[in-house]
């Protein structure tokens, strides 16, 4: 390739990525605006709180990407052409970004000293003044903090949905880095693909340095005491990544985590009575969340039952969906086991065995921003001709999609441990297998559980492209049977019924697993961890 065409390729790729970034920023802006209003509303209205929190809470653990085929089908049917497709993509990214920002807003209002409310009453501030002078400045630091996390999650959705969309010319995104990566032009050449990855990573790093970093510095000026030393920036990122997990942990067992979380504890001392209100909010999720969850499951089951009774022919569809679900389930959990085999030693090394964990974290922060699905072409090319390469590709993507959550979540939970625990190990000379058995593994178990939930959700999300990856009009890699593949095929076949049935089955399965497996597991573990 000569210099001119190389330059041309780089410029094209940069334009592609810029288009993708426009989608990302649009989604982020919408997410932030909605989150601020919904979060503040939920935090200041008792009845709204009881409805909004449990719903947000369920939505954030669903593998929403699985809904994408359905969403794109509906939106494009309503608004044909590229506007509809782009709206669908942006909508999807919003559904990945918005939940943690809402929780961030809600929590920052909940922990405001009640004196603030008294001030606004004493001085007769209007509703708008109260919003501008008290609520907005109060929520901004958490909004920015959560936005950096949302951005990383959003990138995964962006790339995955763009790649997915190219699988069907009717729904294809024209310009975007995900779309480019799945095009024959890029996948055909290692150089072009490498350049695409490079351009993407440059954009990721530039966004962090030029957008999020100044933004973080801008908002912390409100709260000087939360300002961090520069070297802890990477750790604070892990905190944010991990906070995704700890929020889930809080939901799993609210009081427990509030008590055990070190930072929460110190904050609590300062806040005194306010903590009671905070626990109240989480207890609300707990109480109403279970009810709403059961109601949702019951509703879906009733819906499915109704559909089956009125259309007995659908039983065949359901059998297909269930079979596909079983296959993907096996793949997801097999990949999760591998992710644990990688994630556990890495976490233990970072938490206990190295002094340079903040340096590694910086590297991991960049690596984890690269969505696993962007590596599909490389993996497919690398495995060409290998037996079962479709299956292996899917599992690799699942592992890469899940492993970061395990690492970041365990690191975050480890921070709630006494900082003297590594010293205990030194003083009493606990070594080798004993150290693994008595300290390392036990210390990271709570993080493994919260990380596990998010990791598995990420794997299900990846399934819609990992199980059925197309380049141009050719299928580059596919599994034998899988629910992700089923969703892809049902979209191509315009089979709305099959699509809906698959989505409903996934939803019920995830809610059941979260309620009956993860929650129980976390409860039994956290009993011990005071």
């Amino acid at each position, binding site marked *: 390739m000569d210099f001119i065409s190389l330059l041309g390729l780089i410029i094209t790729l940069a334009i592609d990525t810029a288009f993708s970034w426009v989608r990302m920023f649009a989604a982020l802006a919408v997410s932030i605006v909605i989150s601020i209003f919904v979060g503040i509303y939920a935090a200041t209205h008792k009845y709204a709180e009881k409805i909004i929190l449990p719903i947000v809470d369920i939505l954030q653990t669903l593998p929403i990407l699985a809904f994408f085929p359905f969403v794109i089908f509906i939106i494009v049917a309503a608004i044909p052409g590229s506007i509809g497709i782009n709206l669908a993509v942006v909508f999807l990214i919003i559904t990945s970004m918005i939940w943690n920002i809402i929780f961030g807003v809600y929590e920052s209002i909940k922990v405001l000293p009640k004196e603030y409310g008294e001030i606004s009453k004493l001085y007769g501030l209007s509703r708008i003044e109260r919003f501008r002078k008290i609520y907005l400045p109060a929520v901004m630091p958490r909004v920015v903090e959560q936005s950096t996390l949302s951005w990383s999650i959003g990138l995964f959705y962006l790339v995955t949905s763009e790649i997915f969309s190219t699988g069907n010319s009717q729904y294809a995104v024209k310009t975007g880095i995900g779309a480019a990566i799945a095009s024959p032009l890029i996948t055909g050449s290692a150089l072009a693909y490498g350049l695409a990855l490079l351009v993407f990573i440059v954009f990721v790093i530039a966004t962090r340095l030029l957008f999020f970093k100044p933004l973080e510095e801008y908002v912390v000026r409100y709260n000087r005491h939360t300002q961090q030393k520069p070297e802890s920036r990477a750790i604070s990122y892990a905190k944010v990544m991990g906070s995704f997990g700890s929020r889930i942990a809080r939901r799993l067992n609210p009081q427990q985590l509030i008590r055990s979380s070190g930072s929460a504890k110190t904050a609590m001392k300062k806040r005194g009575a306010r903590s009671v209100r905070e626990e109240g909010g989480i207890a609300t999720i707990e109480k109403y969340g279970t009810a709403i969850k059961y109601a949702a499951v019951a509703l879906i089951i009733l819906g499915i039952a109704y559909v089956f009774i009125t259309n007995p022919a659908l039983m065949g569809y359901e059998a297909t969906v269930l079979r596909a679900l079983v296959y993907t389930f096996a793949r997801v959990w097999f990949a999760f086991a591998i992710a644990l085999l990688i994630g556990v030693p890495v976490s233990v090394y970072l938490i206990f065995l190295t002094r340079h964990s903040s340096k590694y974290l910086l590297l991991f922060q960049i690596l984890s921003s690269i969505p696993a699905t962007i590596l599909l072409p490389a993996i497919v090319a690398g495995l060409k001709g290998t037996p079962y390469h479709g299956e292996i590709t899917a599992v690799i993507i699942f592992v890469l999609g899940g492993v970061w959550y395990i690492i970041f979540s365990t690191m975050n939970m480890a921070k709630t441990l*006494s*900082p*003297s*625990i590594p*010293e*205990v190990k*030194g*003083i*009493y*000379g*606990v*070594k080798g297998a*004993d150290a693994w058995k*008595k*300290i390392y593994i*036990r*210390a990271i*178990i709570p993080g493994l559980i919260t990380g596990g939930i998010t990791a598995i959700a990420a794997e299900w999300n990846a399934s819609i492209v990992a199980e059925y990856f197309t380049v141009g009009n050719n299928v580059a890699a596919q599994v034998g049977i899988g629910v992700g593949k089923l969703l892809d095929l049902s979209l191509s076949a315009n089979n709305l019924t099959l699509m809906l049935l698959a989505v409903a089955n996934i939803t019920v399965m995830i809610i059941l697993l979260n309620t009956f497996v993860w929650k129980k597991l976390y409860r039994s573990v956290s009993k*011990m*961890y*005071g």
Partner: protein
Amino acid sequence: MKMVQAKNISYSFSPESVIIGDVSFDADKDEFVSLIGPSGCGKSTLLRIIAGLVKPTGGKTLYMGKKVDGPSSGMSFVFQDFALLPWLTNLDNVKIGCSMMKLSESEKEKKAEIMLDKMGLSGFERSYPNVLSGGMKQRVGIARALVSDPKVLLMDEPFSSLDELTAETLRSDIIYHLKNKNLPVNSVIMVTHNVEEAVELSDKLIILSKKPSHVAATKHIDLKRPRNKRSKEFLDIMDSVYATLAK
């Protein structure tokens, strides 16, 4: 006989931020030494240097005449925040203290049970630290430190996370065990910021200056035990310690 000698210890993060300037002191056999000083003077770091947990920038520590290169079984440590492993039972936490000893599991268990009993915690062997009060947690922490029969006990503000009443009881228990030779411990080095506590417990008081710290004064306290905290002699010593600290 000198159990521990700290010789010209210094510690700094960088040439600009020197925490410990130059500190030397000894702990003799049967001596209870307290290190006291303003916050930020590196008291806890100094104790960790003596324990072999932190490498000093300059100087060295000798334990029974030998240079300290890392944690040794002769010196044990009690932490301010107890540092119990929440996932292990109280008994298993104490057994952690035997890790360096060449004993069978059942022998370790026996030792740990005896030590928990000595600390007044029999009956709590199978429960977990989170059911214990702060004072009881620190008793487990102390049992863990003592189970390996250390000659030197290092304590980093061991009573400062406890409420005053609990701290009081625990202090008198500890000093009772130490002075009645119930324990194999020969010397204690304790870091504290509580002047009264230091005067009550210590045979020798090392008063550190603010950072970069050096030894501002050394006081030998030979009041009879148990000490009356309202006696004139006791209050006089406290006053003179405060006077040195205020300089």
